[in-house]
């Protein structure tokens, strides 16, 4: 099992992602629930704590140590990679949204970027169609 997990969350993160993350943990695993915001004002902090309380609660119910970390950056992709490196995490779990059509061609999703740059195990969770 893993020692330190970074669980990336956004407002679109479905329950499946948290469920998969919890299955990868044992009692020794520390989960850092990571959310990147562009500007970390009091409002953004309060809003994020409120919005992601369910993630922390779900993990704590499973007996897993979890805490929310907010990182301020205008570039969420590289902020996640830097955070993972700085915290020496051994696994990153994140949801992935399947984009279709022209937008899939022109926009690089966070999960695409993480596949190329994250230095540890990466688990991508796709919501069932």
């Amino acid at each position, binding site marked *: 099992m893993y020692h330190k997990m970074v669980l990336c969350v*956004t407002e*679109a993160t479905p329950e499946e992602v948290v469920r998969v993350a919890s299955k990868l943990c044992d009692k020794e695993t520390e989960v850092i629930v990571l959310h990147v915001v562009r500007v970390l004002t009091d409002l953004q902090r309060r809003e994020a704590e409120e919005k992601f309380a369910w993630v922390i609660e779900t993990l704590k119910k499973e007996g897993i140590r979890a805490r929310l970390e907010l990182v301020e950056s205008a570039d969420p992709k590289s902020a996640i990679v830097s955070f993972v490196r700085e915290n020496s995490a051994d696994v990153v779990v994140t949801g992935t949204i399947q984009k279709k059509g022209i937008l899939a061609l022109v*926009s690089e999703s966070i999960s695409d970027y993480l596949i190329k740059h994250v230095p540890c195990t990466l688990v991508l969770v796709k919501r069932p169609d």
Partner: protein
Amino acid sequence: MHACARQETGLNGGERPARFFPLLLFILAIFLTFIHPHFRVPFTSKIIHIDLGVATLICASILLIFSGNRIDLLQGGIVGIENLRPYSVIVLVLSLSFICLTLEYAGFFEFVALKFLSSAGTGRKLFLNVFLLSYILTLFTNNDIVILTLTFIIFHICRHAKLNPMPYLFLQFFVTNIAGMTLYIGNPTNIIVADFAGIDFVKFAKWMVLPSLVSTLACAGVVYLIFRRQIPERLETQAQEMHDVETMRDRGAAAVALICLSLTVLLMSLPKTVVRIPNWVIPLILALPLAVYIASRGFLLKIVQRIPWKIAPFLLGLFILVEGLAASGWTGMFSSVLSGIPDSGPMSVLLPCLMASWFSGFMNNHPMTVFFSRSLPSSWRGMFLAIIAGSNIGPTTMITGSLAGIMWSEILAQHGRAISFSEFSKYGIIVSTVAIILASFIIWLELGML
């Protein structure tokens, strides 16, 4: 019909491969800007990301290497072409971004948006407030930053009021883009076109304030008609009750940045006989005391890291590539096409505006602007004004029209509100068509009167 007057320093017309080479590189640069691929460096684990900052520069370097030591292309791309000085555009864009980013980081935009939007008691009032706020903030600041800040605030307010945020999100995105055409500093594309055509700050505002105002009002009207059933009479939760009084993160920094921005607008609008320094130097000089101030507050580095530095190599590469197109006769050929547009009547403005808007969607508004501007003689004022309008309205036609649009769609997806290209265009084509027709008609009227 327009007389095609520009002289091109073309390559030998018979050298067809050489003639197509700059065009292929230009297309490749646009393609790479959109696709931004990753490449692994052979025999290493290093991955290179061909992003906005690298794509055009790589293609421009290939052009320079294989075009037989054409120093004039490099010179044209960096030092200038006619009235335009590419380095001055870049300095102006970066220093204005620095001031606007300080305002954002200090919490100014969030503070103003919350104060303004939370006073709405009905869905209609919220709609009106989003419109006014988007329009006013975009007038003097960077529309990309306004879009990013307002998107978060709209999600916040709609979540608490249990509203569908989409009508308000579309409204703010359309309004901020179209309102960007109002002032010279509203969009980098305005600066490029205005410098090419020799239109100064005051003249720019004189031409563009009315078309911008009318087309943004019409845009708001169209968005309202499209989404009227999703805009409730009463809000479930009074927005005002949603939060206590929010304070700005750094009032001092916000105040200094606001003073710098106001002085920039004021000094640019004064006659050149009074202010004897070029426009691009004004925000640069004003950004210096601001930099000293925010260094004393401890967040200079954060702002410096957020400056869109990649726009510098991106624009430089574009200018060099378009010089290559000019040298191989492509801009001249396009100029001949444009010369087929009637030189009087509403169509003289409507057609180039429509073309500029649609080309922005296909190739992004920056490459479109540099290419279109380089193809016109500076005497074609109506067409230049049409290109300014088209480059700002273009990103509302197709989401690929500006990089901010692509970024906006990513933020929406992260909030669980993913939109597709076709869904965006379904609304965007209606809104932009109305905006293009009105803006062009008013510009045409102004050309007859002013």
